[in-house]
C-alpha cells in the first residue's frame, strides 16, 4: 500500500501492461515443450534489453515481449555451492554464447538458489541456429586460464553492483540465511568478496562436467513455432537426446521457530523495517493452489478494508507512512510473509514492529470478514489470464511454464489451472492467516539512523 490512486505503484505498472485488446486470432505465440521436457522459467528474463532506453519522455515505447521472437532456454539444477555455480554460469555463457552474434540475437544467463539458466532469442525461422549455439552449454569449457581467472573480478564487480551501499540487499541475504537455515536455499549465489577471490577455474570445470549434462537439463522454447518444427530444428542442430528429467526443488524443512533482529545503522538512510516469517503448514497444499491462496491473502492484507493492514497502520493511525506486504509459498508445506514499511514521524522501528505484530494478531484472531473477502475476491480475476483470450493466455502460460521450470517444478495444464479458483475460500484464507500469525521463524531488519531503532 503506497501513495497511488487505487493500487500500489507495482500493481499499477503490471496492470497497465494488461490493458490490451482481445485476441484477434491472427498470430498467437505458443509455448513449445522440448522433448525432455518442459516447462517453466524466469519471467524477468523475457524483458528485452531495449528497455534501458525507455526514457519517460520518449514517444517510442518498448514492450516487454513480442510475437516475432523465439527464445530458447536451458536450465540445469545444481547441488554444489551456490557461488561456484554462479561463477560457472559466467564461464559457460562466455564459452557457449558470448562470442559475436547477430544484433537480433539477445542472450543472458542467471543463477538462482537451485538452478542455472541460459537463454538466447532471435527470429523464429532461426530456431535451428539458436539451438545449435545454445547447445554449446554442454561443451567442455575451453576459455584461456587467465581470462577465466579475471572473470572472478567481474563476479566481484557484480557483488559490488548488487550489494555495496545497498542495506536492503544486505539485510535480505542475512534474513534469508536465518529463515532458511539448514536448507539449500539459505546459501546465496552472490557470495562475499573473500569467497569470490577463492573461486577456482578447475573446480568450476569439474562442476560443469557433473551438472551440465543432458540428463540434468530442461529445455523451454517460447515462440510462434510448432512442436514438429521444434523437433526438426533440434535434430538439425544436433541437440543431445534428453529423457524427461526427474527434477524437483531441494526439500525444505523449517528449523526451530526463533526470532532474530538485525540492525543496519546508517545515519543517512531513511528509517525502514523489514519483517519476514516462515511457517510450516499442518497439511501440504498443492503448490499452484497454495500460490493463489497466499496471493489472495496478500491482496486482502494490503487493503484499507476491515481485515486489512492499511486501516490500522496507515489510514486510521499514523504508524506506517507506506508499506508493502507479500505472502508466498516456499513449497507445499511452508509459506512466508514479508512486511516492509517506513514509519511515520515520531514512530520508532521498534514501535512499528510491535504495531504490525499486534495488528497481524488481531486480524488473525478476529478473522477476515466475509464482506472483505468477497470484495477482494472480485478483484482477483487478474491473477490468471482471461482464459477466453488466446493471445493473453499464451503469453501468460509462457511466463508461467518458464517460471516453473526455472524453479525445478512441474507445470499444470491450462485445464488444471482453470479449476484452481475452486480451492479459494474464506476458511482457507483465514487458516493461512492464523498460521502466519502463529509460531514461525522470524527475521526482522532495522535500517536507518540508530536513534530511529528504539
Amino acid at each position: 500500500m503506497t501513495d497511488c490512486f487505487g493500487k500500489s505503484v507495482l500493481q499499477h505498472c503490471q496492470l497497465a501492461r494488461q490493458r490490451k485488446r482481445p485476441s484477434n486470432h491472427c498470430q498467437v505465440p505458443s509455448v513449445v515443450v522440448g522433448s525432455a521436457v518442459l516447462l517453466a522459467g524466469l519471467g524477468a528474463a523475457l524483458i528485452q534489453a531495449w528497455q534501458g532506453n525507455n526514457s519517460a519522455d520518449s514517444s517510442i515505447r518498448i514492450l516487454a515481449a513480442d510475437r516475432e521472437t523465439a527464445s530458447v532456454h536451458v536450465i540445469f539444477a545444481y547441488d554444489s555451492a551456490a557461488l561456484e555455480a554462479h561463477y560457472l554460469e559466467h564461464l559457460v555463457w562466455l564459452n557457449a554464447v558470448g562470442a559475436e552474434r547477430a544484433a537480433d540475437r539477445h542472450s543472458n544467463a542467471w543463477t538462482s538458489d537451485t538452478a542455472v539458466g541460459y537463454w538466447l532469442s532471435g527470429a523464429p525461422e532461426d530456431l535451428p541456429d539458436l539451438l545449435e549455439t545454445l547447445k554449446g552449454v554442454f561443451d567442455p569449457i575451453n576459455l584461456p586460464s587467465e581470462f577465466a581467472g579475471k572473470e572472478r573480478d567481474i563476479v566481484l564487480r557484480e557483488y559490488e553492483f548488487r550489494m555495496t551501499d545497498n542495506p536492503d540487499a544486505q539485510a535480505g541475504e542475512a534474513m534469508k540465511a536465518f529463515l532458511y537455515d539448514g536448507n539449500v536455499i539459505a546459501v546465496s549465489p552472490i557470495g562475499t568478496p573473500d569467497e569470490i577471490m577463492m573461486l577456482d577455474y578447475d573446480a568450476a570445470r569439474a562442476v560443469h562436467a557433473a551438472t551440465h549434462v543432458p540428463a540434468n537439463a530442461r529445455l523451454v522454447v517460447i515462440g510462434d513455432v510448432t512442436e514438429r518444427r521444434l523437433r526438426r530444428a533440434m535434430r538439425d542442430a544436433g541437440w543431445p537426446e534428453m529423457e524427461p528429467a526427474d527434477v524437483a526443488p531441494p526439500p525444505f524443512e523449517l528449523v526451530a521457530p526463533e526470532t532474530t533482529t538485525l540492525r543496519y545503522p546508517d545515519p543517512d538512510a531513511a528509517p525502514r523495517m523489514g519483517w519476514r516469517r516462515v511457517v510450516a503448514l499442518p497439511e501440504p497444499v498443492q503448490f499452484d493452489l497454495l500460490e493463489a491462496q497466499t496471493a489472495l491473502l496478500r491482496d486482502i492484507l494490503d487493503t484499507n478494508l476491515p481485515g486489512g493492514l492499511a486501516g490500522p497502520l496507515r489510514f486510521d493511525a499514523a504508524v506506517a507512512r507506506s508499506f508493502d506486504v507479500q505472502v508466498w509459498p516456499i513449497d507445499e508445506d511452508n509459506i512466508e510473509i514479508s512486511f516492509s514499511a517506513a514509519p511515520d514521524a515520531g514512530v520508532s522501528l521498534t514501535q512499528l514492529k510491535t504495531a504490525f505484530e499486534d495488528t497481524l494478531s488481531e486480524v488473525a484472531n478476529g478473522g477476515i470478514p466475509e464482506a472483505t473477502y468477497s470484495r477482494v475476491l472480485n478483484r482477483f480475476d487478474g491473477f490468471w489470464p482471461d482464459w477466453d483470450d488466446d493471445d493473453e493466455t499464451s503469453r501468460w502460460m509462457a511466463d508461467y511454464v518458464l517460471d516453473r521450470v526455472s524453479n525445478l517444478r512441474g507445470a499444470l495444464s491450462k485445464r488444471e489451472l482453470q479449476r484452481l479458483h475452486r480451492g479459494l475460500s474464506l476458511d482457507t484464507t483465514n487458516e493461512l492467516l492464523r498460521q502466519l500469525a502463529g509460531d514461525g521463524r522470524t527475521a526482522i531488519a532495522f535500517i536507518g539512523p540508530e536513534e530511529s531503532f528504539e
Partner: protein
Amino acid sequence: MTRILLLFAALLCLAACRGDAPTASVETSPGGVVYTLLQMPEHEDVTIHIAWPTDWAYRADTNKAAPVVGTQLILAGGAEGYPAGDVGERFADLNSEGNIYVAVIDHVIGELTFERDQMDETIAIANAHLRAPTLDSMWFDRIREGTAAKMAEAQAQPANAGFDAVRWAILGEQPLRNALSLDEPGVVDNLTREDVVAWHTETFTRTPQAIVVAGGIETADAGAAIDALLRGLPDASRTVMQEAAPDYTARRILLHIPEAQTTTLSLIAPLPPTRLGGETEDLILIHALGGDDQSVLFEAVRTELRASYGFGAGMASYTRDHRILFLSGEVETAKLADAEQVVRDAYADFRQSGPSGELGPRKAPLAANFAELPDFVVDQARSELQSALDGFETGRSLRLTDELQAVTEGALMDRLSSALPQAQDFIVIAVSPDADALPGACVIRTPSAAADCP
C-alpha cells in the same frame, strides 16, 4: 465449395481486421477542449492522458519540492467527498487506475484508465481529486517527511552524488538544477502546504497543452469524458516560460568520496531535443553503443578491459529541450583512467564507423515492439501524448513502424555525425575513494564544487 467458403471467411476476417484498426483524429469536446482521439475499437478499456505545462522548476521564487510532494498528496490525501483511504478501494473495485507524475520537469502528466462501463464514476472521482483535493495537513506532513528522508539517503549515495555534481557543472545556480536534484539545503524541510496549494492552483487548469484519449470509445463519449474530467478547473492564470541556459563545456571532474566503496565513471554530452526528429535513429544507435552485452561499450569495458560488471549508454532529459547522452558504469578503481580512455576510443570509433553488421537485425526488436503497441492502450496513449508535446502530426504513434522502415544505414551515419557529440565533447565525472584515480581531473569534495571546475 468448401474452398470458396473458406476464402469468403478469410475475406470477412480481413475486412473485420481493417475495420478494427486504430485511427487517430483531432477532436474538440462540447466544452471546447481540443484533444487527440485514438479510436481502438477492439479494446474495452479507455485511457485518458493529459499534459499540463509548468515552469515551476524554472522560477527562483518557488519551492522545488512542491511538485514531488504535491503529486503524491493529491493521490493519497483524499478529495471533496472522498476521504483519504476510501477511493483507493473504490478504484480497485472498478478496476480503474489513476496516476499523476512530473515528466521531464516541463509537464505534469495525469493518466486515467478504466473499463468503458465504469467511465462515469471513475471520472467523477478523478475530477474531484484534480479540482478539490483535500491536501490534508497530516498527509502533507507525512509525505514531506518521507520525501526528505528518501532524498537524504539518495544524495548520500556516491553514484547519485556524481550526477548531482554534473548538474552543478551544467546548470550551476539556475533554479532548474535544484528542481532536478532537490539538493538546496532545507528545500524539502522548508516546503509548506501553501506552496503545494499554489502549485496545484496554477498547474491544473482546463487548458492543458495536450490530451490523448485512447481505447474503445466513440467521439461523443470521449468529448463528454474530457469535459467532465476538467469540469470546475480554472483557466490558465499565467504564461509558462521554460528557459534554461545549460553549459555543456567539456570538463573532467573527480568527486572524491573517501568512504565510497566503489568507483563510478560517467560521460555526459548534449543531444538534440526529440521535437527535431531522429529519435528512432537514436534508439538504434544508442542500443548498439551501450544497450546490451553485444554493445560497443560492454565489449570494450567489460569483455576487453575487464574493468566492470556492465558499462552502458542511455539517453535522459533535463528538460524537453535539453536532452543528454550518458555513458556510465561502475569500474574497478585501479582501472578508472584506462576505462576513460577506452570508452572515449570506443565511442570515437563507433561515431566514425557506425554500428557493425546488418541494419535489419538491429531494427528487428524495435519492429516487433512497434507492431504490438496497439495491443496496449496505455502505452499507445503515452507514445501519442509525447509526440503531441513534440508537435508531431496527429497519429504518429500509429505509424512508428513506417518511421522505422524508413531508417537507412545512411540515415544512421548522418545522425551520428550531425547529432551525436564528438568524443572530446563529453563532461567526464568520476566518483571514487581515490583522489588520484583520474590524473588531470578537477578534484572536488562536494557536488556543488563542480560549478567551479574549469
